[in-house]
């Protein structure tokens, strides 16, 4: 069994003990065993965090719907398992919670930052596209006029990247590379938001 074959069933390793050839691979491959150990530690940490401050299931459901609509994750069609490995894109499942956390944190940041400026609270539960539009308006509004235009231009570039990646993914839903581009584009947008929030805080 190769490492890449093992990676296919990696998500199952969080909930099940390895058996058969998977266990054999885990014993013989220090890289994969180390990876599984790390993932279990992260999973355990995330569980503790979740227990500490668990948002309502409705919020998670809405975030999931938004991510599905954006094409970042897909609704489960068939439950995978050790005997029936999931499709290759399952490796990106790890990225979905990260992005969901980003959306959540960005929402809270924006709400906190604009608490004195807006009459309506920022809605975390919005239609796809609206989240980005609203966030963008608020991020730009918080910046000094002298630098706003530059941020606006850069956000346009990133939005074009996101749109291009979405189109590519729509044309080739099974293309891992297209999905990777979309993730990267969102990471760029997160970076711009972070820079903008740093600047607006000064």
């Amino acid at each position, binding site marked *: 069994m190769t490492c890449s074959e093992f990676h296919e069933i990696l998500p199952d390793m969080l909930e099940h003990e390895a058996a058969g050839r998977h266990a054999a691979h885990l014993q013989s491959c220090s890289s994969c065993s180390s990876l599984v150990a790390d993932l279990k530690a992260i999973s355990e940490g995330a569980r503790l965090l979740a227990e500490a401050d668990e948002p309502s299931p409705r919020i998670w459901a809405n975030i999931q719907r938004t991510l599905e609509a954006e094409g970042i994750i897909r609704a489960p069609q068939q439950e995978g398992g050790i005997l029936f490995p999931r499709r290759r894109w399952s490796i990106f499942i790890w990225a979905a919670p990260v992005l969901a956390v980003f959306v959540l944190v960005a929402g809270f940041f924006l709400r906190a930052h604009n608490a004195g400026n807006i009459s309506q609270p920022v809605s975390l539960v919005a239609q796809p596209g609206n989240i980005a539009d609203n966030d963008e308006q608020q991020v730009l509004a918080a910046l000094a006029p002298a630098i706003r235009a530059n941020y606006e231009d850069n956000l346009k*570039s*990133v939005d074009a990247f996101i749109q291009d990646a979405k189109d590519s993914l729509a044309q080739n839903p099974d293309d891992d590379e297209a999905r*990777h581009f979309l993730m*990267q*584009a969102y990471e760029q947008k997160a*970076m*711009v938001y*972070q*820079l903008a929030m740093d600047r607006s805080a000064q």
Partner: protein
Amino acid sequence: MVTRQRVGQIIVVAATCMAALAADQIRKEFKYNVGPKASISINNEYGPVTVRPSGTNQIIVTAVLLSNKVEIDQEQIGDRVEVQSHLLAGASKDTARVEYQVQVPTDTSVTIHSSDGPVYAEQLRADLAVVGDSAKVDVNGVADAHVHVNTLDGPITLTNITNGHVEISSVRGDVNMNSVTGPHVIVMSTSGKIHYDGDFGVGGDYQLTSHTGDIDALVPADASVEVTARSLRGDVENDFPLEPKKHTAFLAHSGRSFIGTAGRAASSVVIRSISGKIRFKKR
């Protein structure tokens, strides 16, 4: 004659302005004794930041303030030092400018925020993080460290980075890398160009990604790499002798992608673009 008089007047006015400016300049120096693995954070809204090794156990910060519209807030808490340009009421981009020369023990972690820079750092052996809007960022001779740089449109140049965990992200800035190696080198620019000149080291994971920016890699003939290059809509060129790979994650299309190995394929190199041109060339 009139022209000569005019030039003379301009020189006198310019000299007067420079003298006035020099008179307004304020030079400040701060010294901090620190232990091993100290850290410093420098936040400079406008103006250059240069970081070099001090060769001692001291952090020495020299700041030249160009007006009294800005002041320096600084604090040492144990081995952590924070320095910030504090803009006062009425400060503008010109009057708020501060020029920093910073000397640090080589094992000091350095974090720099600067909106227009430029930022220059060299010969460090500890983590370096640079965040800037349009700041030109130049990092030279950093080893065994994390090097993280984020800019909006500031160009980024990395030279002689060894054993680095390198993460570079820019929206519109070009990224140039010369002799950059390490276990983890991730570079992303939405529309800036990415240029890599080097051998990709041994055992590293290299990912160069763009949306529309072109990506070039200039590689010596003895490089040991497994290369995957793909542009969804841009051209892909390769003149490096690669062995074709039998099992691939996607179907390679001539002119749009290629996959192959060279040497023992010690490092993994993945180059991706949506519409940028990719060139993989033998040096």
